[in-house]
C-alpha cells in the first residue's frame, strides 16, 4: 500500500507546489501592481479622457469623444510644445556635459571624501527650488552684481539683459537639473571596475581612448537614467519659464497650468497633457532605439 501511494504523492503534490511557486512572485508583486493601477493608470486614463469631453465648468463636462480637441490644441499651441522639447533637449545636453566631469571626478578621485562631495551636490536641495530659481532673478538682474559690474567695466552694453530671455530659461532648467544628472552618473561610474580601465591602458589605449571606449560605454546606463530624470522633468517644467522667462519663452507646462487652474478649461489642458506624454514617449523610444536598450536594461 505504502509503496503504491508514495510514488503518487510527489506526482500530485509537485504541480501544486509548482503552481504556487510560479504564482508567488506575482502575488508578492500585487501591492505594487495595485499601487501602479490605482495611483497611476486610473488617474492617467481619467485625465486623458477629459481631453475628449466638451462642456463648461458651470454645466459640467461630458464625454463626447470630441477627438478634434486634440488637433485644435496642437494647431494652437504647437509653437510652445516644440519649444518645450527644444528647451528640454538643450538643457539636458548642457547638464550632461557639465555633470559628467563632476560625477567622474567624484567617482574616480573623490577618495574618502566621496560622501562629503555627494552631500555638497545634494545641499542645494535643502532650499526650495522655487527660492533657488528666484535667487537668479537677483543675481542676473540688469544692474545686479554680475551684469551691473560688467556694464560698469564697459564689457557689456547698457541695454544688455539676460532675464526674460530664452537663455535665462534654459540656464534655469539646466541649473535645477544638475543634481539629477550628477547622481545617476556617479552611481554608474562608481560601479566601473578600475581593473577594466587599467587593462585597456595595458593594451596601449591612451587615457583618452580608454575613457571614450571603456568608461563612457560602461556609464551608458547612468547617462540614460540622467536623461530620463532631467529631460522628462524639464520638458514639462513651467516654473523656470514663469520666473526667468519673458515674452516668447512660454512653455507647454505654463499653458497647461493656465488652462487648468485659471481658465478651468480642462479639455484643453488634458489634450495638451496627452500631446506632452506622447512626445516624451516618442523621444524616449527614439533615444533607446539609437543607443540600444541592452545597456539600459543592464543598468536597471
Amino acid at each position, binding site marked *: 500500500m505504502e509503496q503504491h501511494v508514495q510514488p503518487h504523492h510527489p506526482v500530485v503534490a509537485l504541480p501544486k507546489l509548482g503552481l504556487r511557486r510560479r504564482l508567488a512572485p506575482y502575488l508578492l508583486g500585487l501591492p505594487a501592481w495595485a499601487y501602479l493601477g490605482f495611483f497611476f493608470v486610473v488617474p492617467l486614463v481619467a485625465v486623458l479622457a477629459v481631453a475628449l469631453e466638451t462642456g*463648461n465648468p*458651470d454645466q459640467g463636462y461630458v464625454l463626447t469623444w470630441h477627438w478634434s480637441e486634440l488637433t485644435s490644441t496642437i494647431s494652437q499651441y504647437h509653437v510652445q510644445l516644440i519649444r518645450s522639447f527644444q528647451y528640454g533637449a538643450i538643457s539636458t545636453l548642457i547638464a550632461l556635459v557639465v555633470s559628467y566631469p563632476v560625477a567622474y571626478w567624484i567617482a574616480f578621485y573623490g577618495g574618502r571624501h566621496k560622501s562629503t562631495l555627494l552631500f555638497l551636490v545634494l545641499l542645494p536641495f535643502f532650499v526650495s527650488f522655487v527660492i533657488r530659481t528666484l535667487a537668479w*532673478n537677483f543675481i542676473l538682474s540688469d544692474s545686479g552684481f554680475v551684469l551691473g559690474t560688467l556694464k560698469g567695466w564697459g564689457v557689456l552694453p547698457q541695454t544688455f539683459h539676460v532675464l*526674460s530671455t530664452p537663455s535665462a530659461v534654459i540656464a534655469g532648467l539646466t541649473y535645477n537639473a544638475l543634481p539629477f544628472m550628477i547622481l545617476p552618473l556617479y552611481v554608474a561610474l562608481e560601479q566601473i571596475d578600475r581593473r577594466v580601465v587599467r587593462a585597456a591602458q595595458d593594451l596601449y589605449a591612451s587615457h583618452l581612448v580608454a575613457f571614450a571606449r571603456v568608461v563612457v560605454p560602461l556609464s551608458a546606463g547612468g547617462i540614460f537614467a540622467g536623461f530620463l530624470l532631467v529631460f522628462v522633468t524639464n520638458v514639462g517644467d513651467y516654473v523656470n519659464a514663469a520666473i526667468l522667462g519673458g515674452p516668447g519663452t512660454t512653455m507647454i507646462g505654463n499653458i497647461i497650468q493656465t488652462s487648468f*487652474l485659471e*481658465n*478651468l*478649461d480642462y479639455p484643453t489642458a488634458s489634450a495638451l497633457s496627452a500631446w506632452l506624454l506622447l512626445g516624451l514617449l516618442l523621444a524616449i523610444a527614439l533615444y533607446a532605439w539609437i543607443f540600444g536598450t541592452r545597456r539600459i536594461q543592464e543598468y536597471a
Partner: protein
Amino acid sequence: MSDPTGLGDEQPTIDPAVLRGLTEGRYSRRQVLKAAGAGALGISFSGFLAACGAAGTNPGNGGTTTGAAAVGSAQWWAKQKKTGTLDFGNWPYYIDVTNHGKSHPSLHQFTAATGIKVNYLENIQNNDSFYAKISPTLQGGQSTGYDIIVMTNGWYLTELISHKWLIPLDLDLIPNFKKYAGPLFKDPAYDPHNTYTIAWQSGFTGIGYDPNKTGREITSVRDLFDPKFKGHIGMMSDNTELGSLGLLSLGIDPKSSSRDDWNKAADKLKQQRPMVRQYYDQSYINALERGDVWITQAWSGDIFQANNSGYPHLKFVVPEEGVMHWTDNMAIPVHAKHPRDAVEWMNFYYQPKIAAEVADWVNYITPVPAAKPILLKDDPAVGKSPLVFPTPEMTAKAHDYYTFKDYDDFQAWNSTFNPIIQS
C-alpha cells in the same frame, strides 16, 4: 485671544515694525500669495487635485440651511443665532498684526466686544486656486469650513454668485456698512446692491515708474507704449489687468466693452509686445525696485509699501485715461456654520476705528473713508497717502472691470488676451 491657527503662526517671529518696514514691500500680501501661487504652483495644483478627490467625503457638515425660509432672506437671518465662533478665511498679510505675528488686535477687540472667538486662517493664496479648492465642496452641498471668505471681484467671485454659493447679506444687520462705506464700495457693478458681498480692502491698478530711469513724469497709458522704454516696460500676466489696460488705451470703458473692443485692444497690445520686458505676476514690483523695469502696470498698495521700504523714489500714477479699481470682498459661503457671527464681524469691521487699524497695517484702500481723520492723527504717513485714501480726482477716474456673463464670455476674453501673454 482668537488663536490664528494655521498660517498665522508661520509668520516670522520678528518685531512687526521691522517686518513691515523690511519685508512688506518685497513680500506684500499679493506677492506672498503669488510666491505660493506662481512659485509653488505645484502646491496649489496638487491641492486642487486633492480637493477634487476629497469632495463629498465629509458628510454631516450640513450647516445651517435647513430652515424653511429661503437662505439669506430676512426671515432666515432672523432665525440665525450667534454661536460664539467665527471661521474667517483671508489672504496672508492682510490684517493688522502685533506680537510677532501671533495676534491681530482688531480681532482681539472683536472677541472682547462680542464674545465671538475667531479662527483666523490665512489660507487664500489665489482666487483661482482657492476657487478650485472650495468649489467641489460647495458643489457637493457641504460646508467649506469658512464663515467668511475674501475674494477679488472677477470671474471666480462671479462664479460663486451665479452658482448661488454665497449667502445673501441682510444689510440691515450691518448698519455700519450703510453708515460708513465709501461711495466707491456701495452697489458695485459685479454685485449690484451688495447682495452677496461687502468690501474688505481695495486698490487701483495704474502705472508705477522709476522717474530716475524714465527721465520724465508719466501721465498717460500711452507712456507704456513709448519705444523709448523698449525692453523695460512691464505688463501684467493677469489677463484681466492686461486686457483692461488695452481697452483704456483706446479710450474704451472696460465695464461696457464689447468683443470687438477686446479684439482691437488685443491688436494694440500685440504691437506693444516686442517692447515688453516681461508679463509679470506680483514680481513686477521687484523688477521695478531692481531697475530691470522702468515703467510698469502696478498695484497702488505695492508702490506705497515699496516707498516705505527703501524705494521712496518709485511713483504711482493714475493715468489720464483712467485707472482700474479692484475690490477684495468679504462673503459668506453657503452652508457656513456661523453666519450670524460673520455678519457681526462685518459690522464691527466697518467702524472707522477698526477699519483704520487694519488700513494702517495693510496700506491698501480702506472702504471706510471716515478712517482718514483717525489715521491722520495716529499715523499721518498712511493717513495722508492718496494710495490709502484716494483723492476725489483719483476716484473720478476709477473704472470697473468687465463682469463676465458666463463661461463662454470668460473663455472669449481668455482666448483674446492669453495669446499675447503666452507667446
